[in-house]
């Protein structure tokens, strides 16, 4: 049942095609290979084609997917029982061999972007057709988290090896509820339902992921019923969308925390802790949330928000703001005439950064802002070509405190604290969950005190949604299309 | 007249040729040549006026440009004051250009529209002589007066002058360096009848005062006859007849000259005659395969004319013509009974 690739804007008027879901995204997917991808908007689409052993539900809990149940055998070995009677979209049966093949592919092939996440897996052992054991190189408390991300997608071993990587990803095959029908680059990804999906027939006949780069155009599409979901809508349009008949705004927290990294290297003004503290105190997080984000954010003093392993909730939903104190601190540090801090900003967050700039100016800190094109931001970040301050939104797809490894010495930030390093080392292989959580909390406290990074707020995902569907955005920003239903 | 003898050669043109290669067509080995000037020889003596008449496109302007070195000749030589103009060094060229000036046809395009009259007429001085501004201003006044313009014209732009006045400016400018020869390429063709006479008189007067020679190119026979000592008739890139003014007009030898003379409209209705016509169109400069180029229009054409190109020969009285069958009696063209 492949219908004609009609215009997305007229599709919802047509009763026969009511069973088409259209989602407008700002960018196209970059690849169909879930293991060679680190872009979340791509994963958001691919999760509908492929399954993993486990996945997360809306609240972030790990639940079964292709695995029915699992248990640790020892510190470095986990055993998984697999769903029987699962078939790939090409008709091949899903077996333990496929698991072995897929996980070992991503764990061994260092040209894949997900390699560094999975190379901790030493090998996958096929016990029988529906049982596998995963051996890791060292104790890995995060293994389940790893297996829940798109990089752990299961590919059909036999078919893949038969046709080779290039041809496979021309017309990929997974076990997911939808199969790829068509990918018109920069225009549309079209998925159609996979009738033999092991969890039952999927909801939608067809799903369109349309690429609409211009924000206002995306909103316009939503308002004219051209799309059911418009991702990343400008906060200014909240009222328009809510006021419009048949559309509403859905905002839900996502894993992204806006933060300001401040260099602690010698020579930088921000090497002085007082300056860093002054910066933190000068920023009124709530004003940015209320004004720029239209309320779609939560002030925080930590990266690890609730729902993530190791979250220190005392640092969440709070912020410090005290202009007087900030000025005092600066004066004490010898900057009564003001201080200039050079900050690189991902231009995606220009507005927020400019507001912050104004707030800093109020206490006598001149923020010299350099806007960096989104795509170059990452490159320059890794090449350490950014300024002493870095204004960045950082995500956490592992839902784990381990994301704090960012502040380990020799990582991209210049923050260097041996205490943090040793805590991170300990947490990395600590299989005792409670103890590990405590370790993370301690790190968060240290960071909040040290302010090597000034956390601002956790973002919320902003979706314009058609009233004809029932859709609740997810913490991980993925679209599990089959969970979306018609009203 | 001031210049008594007019026998000292000033400009000698020998077998001058200018062939313009045209755009080559597909599969043609050589581009077709347009022989704008095809073997012209003539001499201009000091102080005399040599008139050149010919149909449009017969190569008059090309000849002038060759002499002025605005074009490089394909062949032949031009000697000015005894020196070959086209083999001179740059400084020699500058030197001879002082003595060789020009007045062009179009009074509207021959003056830079953005220069004032005083700068226009003294530009040659700027190029050749180191004068102070004061001196140049003085010379400008003198020059304007010379051509009958007043000091109040000094600061005007060309567009503020009428056609005749512009031509006066051109003449003043040519005069600035007291040249020996002025090439006048149709200097009055674009002017109103009542103005033409003013300019012709001016040219003549200046010649009497300064004794320079003119090469006077024109369309109209009467004007050429009026101003010239000797007249050359050009047809299709060649000189077909050259003689003293009165000889040529009273006793034309070449049938083209004769036709031309008869085509000139009468000066009084009483002289109206039956229309006698040189039939046919002016020649295409391309179709010169040899033979007389006038053959197509000539009432006396003989087989001989097709085979050979007649040379310009002298008949002993400094009357040159290029025709195998010159006609002494001013024979009538076949009468068109219209």
């Amino acid at each position: 049942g492949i219908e004609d690739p009609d215009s997305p804007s007229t599709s919802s008027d047509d009763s026969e095609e009511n069973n088409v879901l259209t989602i407008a995204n700002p960018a196209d997917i970059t690849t169909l290979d879930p293991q060679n991808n680190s872009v979340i908007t791509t994963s958001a689409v691919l999760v509908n084609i492929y399954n993993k052993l486990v996945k997360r539900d809306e609240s972030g809990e790990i639940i079964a997917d292709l695995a029915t149940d699992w248990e640790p055998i020892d510190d470095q070995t986990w055993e998984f029982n697999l769903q029987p009677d699962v078939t790939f979209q090409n008709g091949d049966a899903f077996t333990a061999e496929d698991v072995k093949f897929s996980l070992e592919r991503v764990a061994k092939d260092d040209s894949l972007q997900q390699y560094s996440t999975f190379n901790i897996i030493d090998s996958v052992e096929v016990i029988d057709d529906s049982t596998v054991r995963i051996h890791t190189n060292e104790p890995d408390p995060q293994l389940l988290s790893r297996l829940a991300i798109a990089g752990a997608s299961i590919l059909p071993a036999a078919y893949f090896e038969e046709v080779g990587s290039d041809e496979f990803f021309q017309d990929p095959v997974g076990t997911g509820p939808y199969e790829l029908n068509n990918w018109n680059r920069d225009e549309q990804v079209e998925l159609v339902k996979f009738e033999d999906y092991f969890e039952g027939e999927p909801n939608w006949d067809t799903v369109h992921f349309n690429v609409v780069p211009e924000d206002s155009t995306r909103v316009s599409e939503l308002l004219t019923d051209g799309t059911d979901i418009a991702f990343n809508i400008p906060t200014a349009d909240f009222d328009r969308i809510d006021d419009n008949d048949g559309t509403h705004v859905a905002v839900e927290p996502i894993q992204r925390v806006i933060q300001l990294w401040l260099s602690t290297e010698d020579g930088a003004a921000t090497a002085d802790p007082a300056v860093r503290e002054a910066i933190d105190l000068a920023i009124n997080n709530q004003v940015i949330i209320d004004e720029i984000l239209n309320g779609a954010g939560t002030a925080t003093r930590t990266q690890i928000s609730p729902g993530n392993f190791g979250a220190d909730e005392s640092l969440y939903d709070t912020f410090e703001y005290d202009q007087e104190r900030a000025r005092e601190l600066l004066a004490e540090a010898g900057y009564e005439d003001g201080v200039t801090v050079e900050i690189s900003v991902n231009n995606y967050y220009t507005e927020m950064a400019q507001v912050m700039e104004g707030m800093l100016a109020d206490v006598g800190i001149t923020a010299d802002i350099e806007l960096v094109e989104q795509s170059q931001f990452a490159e320059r970040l890794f090449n350490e070509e950014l300024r002493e301050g870095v204004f960045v939104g950082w995500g956490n797809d592992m839902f784990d405190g381990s994301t704090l490894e960012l502040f380990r010495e020799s990582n991209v930030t210049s923050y260097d604290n041996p205490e943090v390093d040793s805590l991170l080392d300990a947490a990395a292989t600590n299989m005792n969950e409670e103890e590990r959580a405590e370790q993370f909390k301690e790190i968060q406290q240290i960071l909040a005190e040290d302010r090597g990074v000034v956390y601002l707020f956790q973002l919320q995902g902003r979706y314009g949604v058609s009233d004809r569907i029932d859709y609740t955005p997810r913490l991980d920003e993925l679209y599990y299309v089959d969970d979306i239903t018609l009203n | 007249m001031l210049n008594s003898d007019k026998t000292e050669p000033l400009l000698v043109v020998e077998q001058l040729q200018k062939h313009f290669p045209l755009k080559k067509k597909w599969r043609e080995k050589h581009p077709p040549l347009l022989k704008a000037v095809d073997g012209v020889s003539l001499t201009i003596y000091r102080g005399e006026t040599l008139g050149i008449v010919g149909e449009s496109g017969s190569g008059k302007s090309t000849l002038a440009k060759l002499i002025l070195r605005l074009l490089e000749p394909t062949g032949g030589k031009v000697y000015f004051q005894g020196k070959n103009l086209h083999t001179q060094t740059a400084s020699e060229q500058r030197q001879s250009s002082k003595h060789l000036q020009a007045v062009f046809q179009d009074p509207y395009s021959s003056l830079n529209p953005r220069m004032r009259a005083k700068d226009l007429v003294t530009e040659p001085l700027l190029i050749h002589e180191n004068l102070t501004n004061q001196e140049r201003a003085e010379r400008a006044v003198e020059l304007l007066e010379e051509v009958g313009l007043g000091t109040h014209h000094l600061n005007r732009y060309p567009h503020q002058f009428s056609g005749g006045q512009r031509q006066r400016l051109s003449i003043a400018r040519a005069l600035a360096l007291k040249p020996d020869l002025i090439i006048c390429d149709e200097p009055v063709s674009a002017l109103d009848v009542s103005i033409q006479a003013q300019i012709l008189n001016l040219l003549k007067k200046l010649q009497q005062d300064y004794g320079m020679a003119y090469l006077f190119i024109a369309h109209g026979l009467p004007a050429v006859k009026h101003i010239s000592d000797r007249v050359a008739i050009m047809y299709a890139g060649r000189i077909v007849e050259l003689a003293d003014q009165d000889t040529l007009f009273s006793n034309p030898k070449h049938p083209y000259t004769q036709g031309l003379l008869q085509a000139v409209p009468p000066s009084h209705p009483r002289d109206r005659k039956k229309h006698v016509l040189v039939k046919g169109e002016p020649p295409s400069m391309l179709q010169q395969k040899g033979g007389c180029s006038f053959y197509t229009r000539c009432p006396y054409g003989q087989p001989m004319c097709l085979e050979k190109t007649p040379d310009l020969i002298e008949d002993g009285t400094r009357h040159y013509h290029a025709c195998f069958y010159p006609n002494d009696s001013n024979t009538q063209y076949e009468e068109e009974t219209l």
Partner: protein
Amino acid sequence: MSYIKRSLLQIIPSLIILAFIIFALVYLAGDPVSLMLPENATAEDRAILAKSLGLDQPFYIQFFDYMKNLITGNFGESYLYNEPALGLVTERLGATLWLSAMAMFVAIGISIPLGIIAALKRNTLIDFLVSAISIVGKAMPNFWIGIMLILFFAVTFQIFPVSGASSPMHFVLPSITLGVALAAEMTRLIRASVLEILDQEFVQTARSKGQLEWIVISKHVFLNALIPVVTIIGLQFPQLIGGAIVVETVFSWPGIGRLLLRAMEAKDMAVVQAIVFVIALITIVVNILTDLLYRFLDPRIKYE
């Protein structure tokens, strides 16, 4: 035929210069190696890749190799898409060309009547209005026009779809957006051209035959005035494609403009050069075509 041959010969040096400009830009863009390798690659890896790409060679040798590749149609691999760059470009070229063609139609459709009317009503209020409108049309950034058109015609009145490229209706707004600036330019041109023709005596000749005025305009004036316009179409073509880069973003049009932006963001220079080169080639072809059309239309040239 000789004309085509001549113009083809003439474009060769231009193409070489073009290749040089593009190559120099890419050369300046810097080392692609760091983009192509994973973050943790060693210096040795880099050197090996650089060598395999010929990047250790001096500039002129690299340029020479580059030219050799170009001649064989090899524009390199896109590291972003892992595909030959040329293929990526040709895949999307159609969408952009269609859009440009429609925009050209819009421009012609607007500018010919306006230009002629303005010329015929020279120095009247109508003439003034046409001039004013056409300058305003030129002075408005096209993304602005695009967003406004969407708000009016797609959102408020819902006459045309907002964005995308899947049906003929989808062409309307983007082609208008893209065509407006060109229309403005062409209106002025056509007006001038018609005025010039109107001043020529053959128009009076036609009138003196007792010909109807509208036939005089349509038969004698229009065709003659069209000739300079044809050449303008060729000259304006690259600017149209330049405008498409912006318009495609506003209207989510899946053309090379979008590809270009993607490729530039990612510094995928193979794709960028392929795009520049393909556009340049098309421009050259369009120019030759308009020139031929010009020759076809104008008997003065055809028979030379």
